[in-house]
Every structure is written in C-alpha cells, then in structure tokens.
C-alpha cells in the first residue's frame, strides 16, 4: 500500500505529555515533494499518521533520548567531538565527504568545510543523477516540472520498471484523475509494465503496455525514434519485425497526436550498461516531438535532497557534485570523485547523512567522521560520531523537489536536543588551531 493513509498506531507517548497533531507537512525523503503529511508528536515521540511507507518509517521517532556524540566509541560532550573532527580534518590530505543527505543549510556548511580543509564531495544517491547529466550536459533536453505534468500531460510514457516502489505516490501526484488542460490521459509502460496497485490506481486512464526486457530498452527507444523520424524498422535488422515493432509504430502515432507527451524514467533503476543510452534516446525523442508538437522529459530522482546538493554545488563552486575542493581551486571530474573511486586514495572519510540511518561506505585507510542520523548502525565504530537532527523532524530546513525548481520548507516537529548538521559543520570550521 503506497497511498497516504491514516496509519493505525496506538503507541503511547511519554506519560503525561500532550500530543500535538501537525498537518500539511512537507517531506524531503524521496524527492517527490509531497506536502500533505500528518504526524502526532508527544514529547520526543513522532508517530506518522498520513505518509507513504517510506516517509512513515523515516519520520517515526521513539520517546527515548537520542545517543550523544562519541569519539573512539566513548561518549563525549559535543564540543569535544567537534574538536576531534577538526583535528582529523586538519591532519588529512585527501578527505572524502560522502552521503551529503541534508538540507540546503547543511550543504552550505559542508561546502564551507571543504573550502577550509579540502575534500571531494559526492552524494550517496548521485548515480542516477550522473546518468541523466550525461545527456543534459552533452546535448540538453526539454523538461517539465510536476505541475506541468499534472495539468497538461495527455500521454505519459514510463520507461523501464514501474516507479511505484521507489516513488510511492508518483502516479497519485503526477496524473490525478482531474486535470486542468486535458480530459483524458494515456499511460504507456515501455518496459516491465505496471504493478497491480498501479494498474488499479490508473483505472481511469487508458493503459498501454509495450513489454521490453530491461537489456533491450535502448534499442526499443532507438526504434521508436526511427518511427517518429519516418524511418522504417528495416534498419534494425529484423529486431523490430515482430510485436514490439508493431507496438512501437503504434506508439509513434500516439505520440505524434499527443498534445503534451511526457517521458519518465528512474535513471538509478535502469540497467547499468545502457542507462545513459536510454536517457539519451528519450531526450532525443522528446526533441524530435517538439519540432511539430510539445513534449518533455521528467526524470525521476532526488532522494535525500540530491538535487539540492547538486544545485548548491553549482552556485557555490560552479560545478556539479563529484568535485574536489582542494584549497586553491575546485575541480570537477565525475570519474575520479564519485565516492567509491575517491575513497581508493582517501585518508579520511566524512560521512554526512541527516535523513536516514545509512551507514558510511566501507573505509579503513583513515579516520571516519560521521555526522549522521542518530539511529545509524556502524560496521566499525567511527573515530568521531556526532548524531545530527533530521530536517523536517528535528529542525526546519529547505530541500529541493526532484524537478530542481520547487524548494520546500521542512518544519521542526520536536526537540530532542539534536544539533543541525549545518551548526555542527560551522562549529568544526570555527575550531581554533585545527
């Protein structure tokens, strides 16, 4: 079940504490930017009442106090952990900042830390982003934001797998039954088809399935593009002679007649060897359609404010994520500064993640500093662990929606004494003699 729903939850809060109902909350977890969430807060306990399953898990908090900061496994006051982090950073020659799951202020703080100490920066969820940037930076594309999709899209083409598992409320948000500028919509699933729940949800729309095995998506899109350009299936050496060719030819006709077609994919979920090609083909098809009609891409992504992280990097350093800031200049090299690659030559890992208890990547060549979710479980105890608050739970903050245009204000729900990642970063940066 992925609809927002009243969640039956009878957990009691702290005895005697009043329970507050908070409504219309914005959510920063998956990037879809839902802002109608509801929670009940009793003391430190947060019980989600209206939320998708992912948000429900990530919003829930118990009544107990969060853990305190630790250095070498020993609990210490925050100031001492901050000093230890600054000492490690000052001694480092090749630091890697990973995770980067935080709000805009947290990202600004991490950027400042990188300027002070030198580090490469990458986000834990940037793989899909870079598969998209491969096309966006090389050729560009025409995209749409969520409200354009909602109001205008009459043909939605979903490439690959059903996005429901990763973006639970996508269809509810993107193609509601009523739309301003279109009376009927056609949903096309080019790939593995809709799940049963999606099929139910889209019952009011026309549904077309074009089954394509994951490894053949690039060729299928090439075929679709060829049909749209008025070329036949002949150039595909028989590969499009069967049912797929017929389906694609029919889809090409449907797209030609569309008033506003939108292509959706989740680049992170596309099969690795051809993900970039799929994105490239989809953008090329949209470019072709725009010659005579209107169409746009809507790439899914944006978990844990990865889109915001990329935006902040661009206005701070002029480069996307996967950039090294080395004390004199910054240098962007996506192949070198992707977290996994950068860690091979690193002597320190600073892992920052305030949205979810994601452990840092494996690293043993130097100290690990974790500015992390309080519930993070570590495979090996980091040299410094500073539990930080979650934006939208422990403090207010700003995050970007996946389309990169709309920013949402997240609210503070409770006070559990957890610091903002931005404040911890500022304290480390301000440390004397580091």
């Amino acid at each position, binding site marked *: 079940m992925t609809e927002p729903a009243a969640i039956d939850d009878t957990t009691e809060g702290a005895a005697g504490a009043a329970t507050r109902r908070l409504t219309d909350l*914005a959510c920063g977890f998956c990037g879809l930017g839902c802002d109608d969430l509801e929670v009940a807060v009793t003391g430190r306990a947060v019980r989600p009442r209206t939320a998708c399953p992912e948000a429900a898990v990530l919003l829930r908090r118990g009544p107990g106090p969060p853990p305190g900061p630790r250095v070498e496994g020993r609990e210490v006051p925050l100031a001492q952990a901050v000093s230890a982090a600054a000492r490690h950073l000052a001694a480092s020659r090749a630091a890697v900042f990973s995770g980067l799951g935080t709000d805009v202020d947290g990202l600004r703080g991490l950027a400042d830390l990188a300027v002070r100490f030198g580090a490469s920066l990458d986000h834990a969820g940037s793989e899909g982003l870079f598969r998209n940037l491969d096309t966006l930076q090389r050729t560009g594309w025409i995209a749409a934001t969520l409200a354009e999709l909602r109001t205008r899209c009459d043909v939605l083409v979903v490439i690959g797998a059903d996005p429901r598992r990763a973006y639970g409320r996508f269809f509810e948000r993107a193609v509601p039954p009523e739309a301003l500028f279109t009376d009927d919509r056609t949903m096309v699933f080019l790939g593995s088809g809709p799940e049963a729940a999606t099929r139910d949800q889209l019952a009011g729309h026309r549904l077309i399935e074009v089954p394509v095995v994951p490894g053949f998506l690039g060729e299928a899109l090439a075929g679709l593009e060829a049909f749209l350009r008025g070329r036949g299936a002949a150039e595909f050496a028989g590969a499009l002679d069967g049912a797929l060719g017929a389906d694609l030819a029919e889809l090409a006709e449907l797209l030609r007649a569309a008033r506003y077609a939108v292509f959706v994919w989740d680049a992170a979920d596309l099969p690795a060897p051809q993900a970039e090609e799929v994105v490239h083909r989809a953008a090329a098809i949209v470019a072709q359609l725009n010659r005579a009609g209107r169409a746009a891409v809507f790439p899914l992504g944006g978990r844990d404010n990865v889109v915001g992280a990329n935006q902040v990097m661009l206005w*701070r350093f002029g480069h996307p994520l996967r950039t090294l800031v080395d004390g004199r200049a910054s240098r*962007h090299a996506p192949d070198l500064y992707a977290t996994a690659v950068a860690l091979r030559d690193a002597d320190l890992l600073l892992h920052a993640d305030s949205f979810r208890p994601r452990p840092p990547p494996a690293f043993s060549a130097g100290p690990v500093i974790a500015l992390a979710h309080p519930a993070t479980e570590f495979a090996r105890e980091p040299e410094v662990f500073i539990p930080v608050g979650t934006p939208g739970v422990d403090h207010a903050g700003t995050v970007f929606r996946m389309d990169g245009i709309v920013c949402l204000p997240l609210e503070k729900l409770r006070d559990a004494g957890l610091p903002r990642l931005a404040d911890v970063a500022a304290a480390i940066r301000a440390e004397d003699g580091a």
Partner: protein
Amino acid sequence: MRVRVTNGRVFDPASGWVDAARDVLIADGRIVADDLPQPGETVYDAAGGVVMAGGIDLHSHIAGGKVNLGRLLMSEDRRAHPEPFGDFCGCGGGRALPTAHATGCLYSQMGYTAVFEPAMLGANARHAHLEMADIPNIDTGGYLVLGNDDAFLQLLAQGEGQDALNDYVAWMIKATQSCAVKLVNPGGISAFKFNGRSLDLDEEGPYYGLTPRRILGALQQAVTELGLPHPIHLHGCNLGVPGNIDTTLATIAAAEGFALHLAHVQFHAYGQEGDRRFSSGAAALAAAVNAHPHVSVDVGQVMFGQTVTASADLMAQYRNHRHASPGKWAGMDIECDAACGVVPFRYRDTSFVHGLQWAIGLELFLLIDDPWRVFLTTDHPNGAPFTTYPHLIRLLMDKPFRDAHLARLGPAVRAHTGLGEIRREYTLEEIAIVTRAAPARALGLADRGHLAPGGVGDLVVYAEDSDREAMFAAPRLVLKNGREVVRDGAIVALQAGSTFAAAPPCDPQMDARMARWFDEAIGLKAKHFRIADHEIRGGRGPIRLECRP
C-alpha cells in the same frame, strides 16, 4: 564609526552635484551632512579621483533556476574561467555565469553595490532567494514573472474585476518576496505550452484567447494601483525576430500613459530592410522613447565573445536553439508559472547579424536623449557577461575608440548602421546617471544612487583615467554601507548584502482562493509556496520597499 571621503570630484546627478569639490561623510553606514572633521574618523583621500554612489544594475540574471541550469549546461565557461589566483576563498569562477560568490565579488570590483534579478519565477523564488543570500557585497532583489501564469490568465479570461487581479498580484509579490513585476513575452510562454510558436501583440493566444496587449494592460493597471515603485518591467513579444520593431513601437503606443519599462530593447529593435532582411530599428525606437516620457528602457548591449543566453521566454529560446554554440541547449516548462530556456551563444564580430546587434545597442544608447530613462545593461548574460561594462562605458564615452571598433566590422554592417555618424560621447555625469542615479530612481530606492544625507554609505572612487575602460574596471575604493570592500580593484572584505522586497496589501480572502488553486491545480500547498521573511538573507529578512497606491 565615521568615514570621510575627501578631495574627490563628486558626480551625484540625483543631488545636482556634478563635478563638485565636496567631502562625503558617512556615519554608521549612512551618509550624513558634512561636518567639521572629528578625531578618530577614517579619512580616504580621493584626490585625482571621481566619486560616485555605488553602481546599480536593474537587469542582470544572477540567481535562480535558469542561472544554475546554465552553470550545469555550460561547463565550458567554468573550465575556461577558474578561480582567481591568490588566497582561495571558495569563490568559484565562471564568466558568463559566475558562481554566486564570484558574482558578488566581480560586481563589487567594478563599483556596483546593488543588482536585480529580473526574472524570478514564483515557483522558483525560494531557490533564487537562497542563491541571492550567498552573493556577497551587493544588495539584490527579484522581479516576479507574471503574465504567463495560469492562475492569472484564468482570472483574466474569466473576466474577473481589476480588484481581484490586483489582489492576486499583491498576494504573489508578497508570497515570493519580490520587488517588482516582470512580464516576459506576455501570453507567449503559455502559448508555447499549447504548441503556439509565435504570438504578436494583438494576437489571441491559445486556450485563454487573451492578447498580449490585454495581459499587459491588466498588469500595468495592477502595478499602478498597488503603487509598486517600479512600473511593469517588460520583455515584449517577438524577441530577436527581424521586423520586431513594429511590435515594440506598438507596445509603446499601447502603454497609454502608464509608466512602462522596456527591457533589453536592443533585442526588440530589428527592422527587415535591406538585402539581408535584417536592419536597425534603433532610430525609430529612440524617437518613440524620446516622445514618450513615461517609458524607460535598458539596452541589453551585445558584446562579442562566448556567453550563455538564459531566459524565461522558452518560445523565443526554442526558436533560437538552432544557433546554440556550443551546440546544446536546455528548456523547461515550469509549474503553470512560466518556463526557461538556456542556449549557449557566441557573438562573432565576423557575423553580419551579431555586428549589427552590437551597433543597434550603441545607437540606442546614443540616440535616446534623456539618460534618466536609459539604463546600462547587457542583459547579463544574454548580450554579454556583466564584466564587459567597463568596455561598454568606454564605447559610450570615447568616439574614436568606438569608431575604431566599428571599423573592424564588415562593410555590410557599416553600411547598415548610422553609428559612425553619431558624435555624442557620454559624460561622466551621464555615466553616473545610467549606472546608478536613474536605476535607483526607477526602482524606488530612495536611499541609493546618490550621496546626499540619508543615503546608504555605498560609494565608489574611480581614479581619473582617459582610458575609461581601465578607470571603470578597477575602482580605487568601494565602500558598502560605509565599510571598505574593494581597494585598488581587489576585494579586501566580504559583507552580507540585503534583499529588497515589496509587500502590497491584499484582500485576506485571496488566501483561501490561492489555497484552493494550489491544492487543485498545482498539487502544492499555498503555505509552502509562500516565503517567510526569515527565509531571506539567512534570517535577516528583506528591506521593504514602500508601495504608494
């Protein structure tokens, strides 16, 4: 803290001081009446220097979605312009689209102290404000793009009264913390979403059946009745289209006595005379501006070299994308609000069209008589990066220099422009008007653009130099709020700037109406669209511009 700037030649046309030998005294960040020197005051000797108020750019794309998309798309610009040498302050680089930090530093190094982002989309306003908060040393503000927003077009098409339109505009300005209203290709961006490829002033757009003239008229009335200090800031129909001078002249006539600001008019002053069907409409446009005292313009001068064009006008950018250099571009339909298009562009002095664009911009500067109604811009980065301003100033002030550059262009360009016959050279007084006094007045910034008591202590000392480009490229001294930020052309300190915003009153019933619109159409809560004061400039809030209905 008292600061005295002495021995300089003061050019403050707003106060009537032109080449005046007088001290400027600043106490606690504000200019005060001159007084006897006191012990402990900081004295700057401006001997041999020209003293002006801080520069103000009222049309420069410095923050928000299209700017950041441009940085992403045009990584070549960033690679070609790395961080400056010296102590690294994390400023990043770039020229056509510098980082937020570099934008503040580069403007401040030229003596500018306030710059306005002229195309802030409501849906993207929070982002634009986040970026502006990271721009040091200059004050900022954003103009809200209206006139293609479905909420407004629906109200207008349904025949809602002017009061309801005014309430909508007021609600949107306050919600987005904007300081003025911008119209970009009124109705045209919306039309492109319905596959309209062009829309002229009196053409009915698809779906709503509204003409740009009607949209412009309704918003002009709203802005006037709400008492916003700046009139409608218009990027008109048919940008870049040969022959668009007719539309531009008709637009001026359509203003019907309302104040109107026409943005980047160079891109709207094209005829189609001659064998190449592309000619200068500058003389006709300048004559119209001269004859209509309620009209002001900024020029949007083109300079040769690599840049990026970034605009909310996706209809025009789609048309232009085939000229992209390097050959890539990005566009986006945005949130029932407007759109954006980013197209890298290289203006070449060997191109007839580009050469004539260059000449048309200069003709406009030189043929419009009243410097109080023409503002110095390149529509950064669309005509050229703002860092070309000192060169542009020299072109305006130095006829032999201008003629030498004109002589480098092809004979076809020279045959199509009357630029060589224009003898006018801008004076220092006129430069002070077009770069600070006039834009301050046009935006209603009562305490900027002059050096009279009550003004903020934003002051620049340029070393007198017959090479005006060198003179305006590296001021000897820049004070922001009375404190030194630039010395001898180099940044010596960083200061947080402020952001201007207006908050015209609106009927509280608009809240419920907008809540319904956002719920039903947009799928976002109106309360999350609204930007709180504490979100501006890191919690310091905006400087409120006064509205005078």
